[in-house]
C-alpha cells in the first residue's frame, strides 16, 4: 500500500492528539472561569473530546487500510461514526447557552440533536455502508441510505453551521475592544472550521478531498488553541497584548491637580 495512507494516518493522529490536549487544557483551566461561563466551557471540553474520539479510530482505520485489513477498517469506521454523530450536541448547547444564557433551554435544544444523531446512526447501521474503497491517500466508505444523508445534511450540518454564523455576525456587528473580539470570534471560527471539514471528511467520496478536509480540521484545532492561548508575538502583532501596569496611588488634592494642569496649559 502507499505512503499516502500513512500521511493520512499521521494527520488523523495529530488531530486526535491536539484535540484531546486542547480538551484537557480547557478542563484544567476551569477555576479561571466564572460560574456563568462554566457550562459553555464543559460543552467545549466535550466537543473537543468527541473530535478526538472520532479521529482516534479513524487513525487506526487508515493504518488498517495501509496494512490491507478491510475488516478492521470497517470496524473502526463503525466506531468512529458514533462520537461523530454526537459532535453537534455540545456544539448546539454551547451556542444556545452563549446566546440565550438558559441552561435548560440549551439542554432541551441539544437533546433534539441527540435525536438527529441517533436517527442518523440507526439509518446508517440498518442500511449499511459500501466499501472500503482504498486509494492512494485514503480509505472511503459510501453511505447506503439517502435518509441518513438527508438527516446528516439538515440536522447535523446546516442548522449548527447557521447557528455559528449567526453568533459570529452578532459579534462582528458589535463594537468591542480588539482583545475581546479576538477572544470571542476566533474560537468560533476555529470550531466552524473543524466542524464543517469533519462533515466534509465523512461524506466525501473523493480521496484527495478527504485528505484536504483532514488537513483543515488540523488547522482548525491549532487555530482553537491559538484563540485561547495566543503566543506573545501574535498578541503584539494583533495589538491584543495586555499592558502590564500597576495602579498609581497617591493622595489626590484636586485643587492642586487643577492648578498643575493649568500651569501645563500655560506652558
Amino acid at each position, binding site marked *: 500500500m502507499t505512503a499516502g495512507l500513512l500521511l493520512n494516518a499521521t494527520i488523523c493522529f495529530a488531530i486526535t492528539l491536539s484535540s484531546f490536549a486542547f480538551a484537557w487544557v480547557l478542563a484544567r483551566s476551569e477555576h479561571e472561569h466564572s460560574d456563568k*461561563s462554566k457550562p459553555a466551557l464543559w460543552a467545549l471540553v466535550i466537543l473537543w473530546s468527541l473530535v478526538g474520539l472520532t479521529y482516534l479510530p479513524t487513525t487506526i482505520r487508515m493504518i488498517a487500510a495501509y496494512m490491507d485489513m478491510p475488516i478492521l477498517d470497517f470496524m473502526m469506521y463503525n466506531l468512529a461514526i458514533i462520537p461523530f454523530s454526537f459532535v453537534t450536541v455540545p456544539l448546539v448547547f454551547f451556542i444556545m447557552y*452563549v446566546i440565550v444564557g438558559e441552561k435548560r433551554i440549551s439542554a432541551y435544544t441539544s437533546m433534539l440533536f441527540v435525536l438527529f444523531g441517533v436517527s442518523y446512526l440507526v439509518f446508517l447501521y440498518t442500511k449499511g455502508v459500501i466499501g472500503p474503497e482504498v486509494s492512494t491517500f485514503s480509505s472511503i466508505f459510501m453511505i447506503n441510505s439517502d435518509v441518513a444523508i438527508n438527516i446528516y445534511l439538515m440536522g447535523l450540518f446546516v442548522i449548527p453551521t447557521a447557528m455559528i454564523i449567526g453568533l459570529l455576525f452578532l459579534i462582528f456587528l458589535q463594537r468591542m475592544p480588539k482583545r*475581546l473580539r479576538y*477572544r470571542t470570534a476566533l*474560537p468560533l471560527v476555529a470550531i466552524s472550521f473543524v466542524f464543517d471539514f469533519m462533515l466534509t471528511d465523512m461524506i466525501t467520496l473523493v480521496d484527495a478531498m478527504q485528505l484536504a478536509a483532514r488537513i483543515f480540521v488540523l488547522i482548525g484545532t491549532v487555530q482553537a488553541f491559538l484563540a485561547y492561548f495566543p503566543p506573545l508575538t501574535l498578541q503584539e502583532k494583533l495589538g491584543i497584548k495586555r499592558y502590564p501596569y500597576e495602579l498609581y496611588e497617591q493622595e489626590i488634592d484636586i485643587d492642586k491637580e487643577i492648578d498643575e494642569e493649568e500651569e501645563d496649559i500655560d506652558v
Partner: protein
Amino acid sequence: MSEEIDVEFEQEVAEFYQSLGIHQGPGDMQYRIILRVLGRNEGKITEFSDIRKYTDQFADKGSIGSKMKTVFQLEGLVEKVKRGGYVITDKGVTAYNFLKDSTAFYKKNKRMGEIIERMP
C-alpha cells in the same frame, strides 16, 4: 406612544450612563423620566401631576419643577401652555427619540456583555 414607564429600569439605564461619565441627559434619571412622560403624551397636554406620579418615588417636587424650568423650558423642549401643563415641542420629540436610542444602546450593550461573560 402609550408605553409603560419602568422607573427601576430607567434608573438602571441612567446608572449605566453615569458609569461612563455621562451624568446629564441620558445619565440623568429625572431627565429620563420627565422626557419619557412628555414623549408618551405627544400631541396632548402633560400635567405636572403626570410627571410627579413617577418622580415622587425618587425626587421632590421642587427639583422636578426646577428641572422643567432650567432644562426643558429653557432649551425649548417643552412649552408651558397653562399652570402645570406642558406640551412637548418638535425639538423635545428629537430629544425623546435620542433617549429611546440611548435605551436601545444600553440593552444591546448589556446583551453583548452577557454573551461575552458566558463565553469561556
